[in-house]
Structure formats: structure tokens, C-alpha cells
């Protein structure tokens, strides 16, 4: 079965190789995230003109929208990594899946918080049971469930496999929740506000948004590298390569 996996992926999947690779990648990712983040914030908060209808309030989208994208993107990464971990039992995939979850949960939380701030200014309420907001909330619960299940096991690898299974169940669940909440909203004729439905985004608003999206991606990579490195050290505590690193640090 292992012949299905490309050789380079297989090599990268070995903990010492990945540990070294992530260690080299991480400073670059942090630097790039900071640089892009500052440029995007400057572009979004200073250069971009105020919106015709929303004034300056719309500027929260430069945080809100990239966070929302990341919350879904990281869940997808977690789902794929979990699948790989369950099918091929690759330790690194377990680590990637489980260390993605807290980052994804944080982005989901930021999305909800900024969304509700924006909602207070636009709709006059902190919370509406809109399909997107509700799906995002359910996504947060899914993340928390995965994190909770992972930590409920004493054996971390077993916990990772169980929580990975839950993550895959969640991948199926999110679209169903979105669809059903939409149906529920039409039934109750509640507020069907589209966040960015009608308004076309002008070019000088779009580039900071896309730059911020890249910045969040870089941040995720940097954060994942750091977390995965720490986790690998803990998981492989008894192995020789970890001993060598520990001896090197002590010197």
C-alpha cells in the first residue's frame, strides 16, 4: 500500500526529516506572514477608500474574511491529514491533523468575533441565526469536539486516530448543516442578509484582502511547523534523533 505514496512524501513523512525541514521553513513563514500582514493592513486600513454605504465599518473584512477562509481551509487540511493518518497510519499526518485543530479553532473564533462586531454596526445586533454564522458556529463546535476527543485519550496516537475520525465525520457534516440552516431560514423568513452579496469589491479593496489571505496562510504554516516540531519531540522522546537534538541543545 505504501507504494501509492510518492517517495518524496514518504521521506518527508519521517519525523527527523520533517523536524529539520519545518525548522528551516518556520522563520521564513513567520517573516513572510508579518511582512504581508503589515502591507495588507496598511493597504486595507489606510489606502483603501471608505465604502459608499458602510463607511469605515467595512474595514473589518480585512480580518474577518481571511479568517473565515482559513477556518475552512484548515478544516480541509485537517480532514485530509486525518484521512491519510487513518489509512496509511503515518505519524506525521496525525501530528499535522491534531496540531492544525487549535489554529483552526482560533481562526474560527476570530471570524465569529469580528463577524459579530460587524453585525452590531450593520444589523444592530451582535448575533443573527444566518446560515453562514450558524455554520461557522457549528464549525467551532466541531473543532472543539476534535480537540476535546484528542485530549480525552491517554495514548496520544490513539487519540489522534479517534479525533481524526471525528474530523472526517465533520467534513461530511458541515455542508449538511449549511444547507439545513439555509432551509430553516427560508422557513422562518428570518434575516436573509448577504454579507457581501451585492457590493462589488473594488480593486484597491481586493488586493489588501488577498494579501491578508496570503499572510494568514503563512502564519498557519509557521504555527503548524512550530507545533508539529514540539509534538514530534514529545512523541518520539525515546528515539535516537531526539536524543541527539537534546544533547546538541545542552552543549
Amino acid at each position, binding site marked *: 500500500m505504501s507504494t501509492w505514496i510518492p517517495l518524496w512524501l514518504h521521506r518527508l513523512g519521517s519525523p527527523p526529516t520533517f523536524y529539520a525541514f519545518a525548522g528551516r521553513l518556520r522563520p521564513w513563514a513567520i517573516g513572510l506572514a508579518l511582512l504581508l500582514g503589515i502591507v495588507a493592513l496598511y493597504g486595507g486600513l489606510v489606502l483603501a477608500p471608505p465604502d459608499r454605504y458602510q463607511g469605515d465599518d467595512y474595514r473589518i473584512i480585512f480580518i474577518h474574511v481571511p479568517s473565515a477562509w482559513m477556518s475552512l481551509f484548515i478544516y480541509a487540511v485537517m480532514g485530509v491529514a486525518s484521512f491519510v493518518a487513518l489509512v496509511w497510519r503515518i505519524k506525521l499526518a496525525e501530528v499535522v491533523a491534531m496540531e492544525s485543530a487549535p489554529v483552526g479553532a482560533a481562526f474560527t473564533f476570530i471570524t465569529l468575533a469580528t463577524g459579530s462586531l460587524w453585525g452590531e454596526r450593520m444589523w444592530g445586533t451582535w448575533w443573527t441565526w444566518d446560515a453562514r454564522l450558524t455554520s461557522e458556529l457549528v464549525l467551532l463546535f466541531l473543532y472543539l469536539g476534535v480537540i476535546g476527543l484528542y485530549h*480525552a485519550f491517554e495514548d496520544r496516537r490513539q487519540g489522534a486516530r*479517534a479525533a481524526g475520525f471525528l474530523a472526517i465525520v465533520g467534513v461530511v*457534516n458541515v455542508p449538511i448543516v449549511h444547507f*439545513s440552516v439555509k432551509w430553516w431560514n427560508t*422557513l*422562518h423568513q428570518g434575516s436573509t442578509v448577504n454579507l457581501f452579496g451585492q457590493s462589488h469589491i473594488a480593486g484597491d479593496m481586493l488586493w489588501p484582502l488577498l494579501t491578508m489571505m496570503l499572510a494568514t496562510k503563512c502564519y498557519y504554516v509557521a504555527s503548524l511547523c512550530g507545533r508539529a516540531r514540539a509534538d514530534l519531540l514529545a512523541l518520539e522522546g525515546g528515539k535516537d534523533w531526539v536524543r541527539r537534538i537534546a544533547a546538541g541543545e545542552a552543549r
Partner: protein
Amino acid sequence: MSRAPLSRACAALLRRDLVLAWRQRGDIALPVLYALIVATLFPFALGPDLALLQRIAGGVVLLTVLLAMLLALDGLFRGDLEDGSLEQLVLSPQPLAPMLGMKILAHWLTTALPLIVIAPLLASLLHLPAAAMPALLLALLLATPLVSLLGAVLVALTAGTRRSGMLLALMLLPLCVPVMIFAAGALAAAQQGLPWTAPIAWLGAALALAVVLAPLACAAALRIALDA
């Protein structure tokens, strides 16, 4: 020497679980009592206003049944795990998924069915209009097995952990949102005199899918949980 046929094994397991439930019938009464208490507390919390109670009755009964089921779900594999019966089941020459399907069926019969039986009583305590009663019963008949099946997958995942009631609730909530929406949607439509077959049909479709997939997922989850 004879291999046990699948049908015999299913019957043996179903019979065992039903006999066990019957010998401990006090446990069957607990979720029912719990649902009764929760439903009785609602009018005290919201006031005895007839119109208000009528409006919320359907949702309250659904929610009460869901919570009572959640309470009982935790024990689905607990006993079998503690006395080693679950190991014997997993190691038996039978395919695991249909076996777990039987366990889920027995669990549904002994926890959800009594709740459905008293649901009309709960509904009339809250003055649900009689016209909405068929929709309530049909919605419950489809939604409760769905919750049992989805819940069983999650209970199997937590089988290897310490006591995990809260965790189960956290994990089950996102899965229950669509079930709740469609069951409540059917009820709301029935109360307003609108056609309510569409959401019921959605529930039925989801149930058909879950009957096939959930035992398989449950078996996979249980193998993960026992691998320690």
C-alpha cells in the same frame, strides 16, 4: 462443527440486549422520567400562557427527547466494555457492523421508543394542538433512530476514554443540528396548517443513509477505540 449464521447471531445479540434491558427495567424508566421533569419545568420557567406554550410545545418535546436520549447514549457500550463482552463481540467470526446495528436497534427500542410513547403526553402537557400530533410522532419516529445511529458512532469513538458525558454532548451537537431543524420544521409547518411532508421526507432519506453507513462507521470507530 457449525459456523454461526449471521441471522442467528443477530437474533442472539438482540435477544440478549433486550433481556438485559428487561432485567434492569428501572434504567428504562430513567430517561422517561427525565423527559417528564424537563417538560414539566418549561411552563414554570416561561409562565402558563397558553398561546406561548402552544407555540413552543413541539420544539420543547423534540429537545427534551433529544436530551434524554443523550443521557442514555453514554451507556450504549459502557457495560459491554467493562465486562469484556465487547471484546468477545469484536473477536467473533461475525461482521462487526450488523452486530453493532443490532446493539443500536436494541438501544433504540429500550430508550427512544418509551420516549416516543410518552411524547403525546408531554405534548399535551404543553397544549400542542392535536392537529400537529401526527407530525410530532412521525418526526420522532424518524429523528430518534437517526440520533441513535449518529450518537453510536461518537460513543464508539469515546469508548476508550474515561467518563465522557460532556464530550459526547459537544461532539453530538453539530451532528444533531440538521436533524433538529428538519424535525422542528415539520412540526412548525404542521402547526401552521402547511404541508409538512418535505422535511419528513428529508429525515427519512437521512435515516435510510444512516442505517447503512452508521454501523460501518461505528465498527471502524470501535476498532480505533479498542486499539490500545
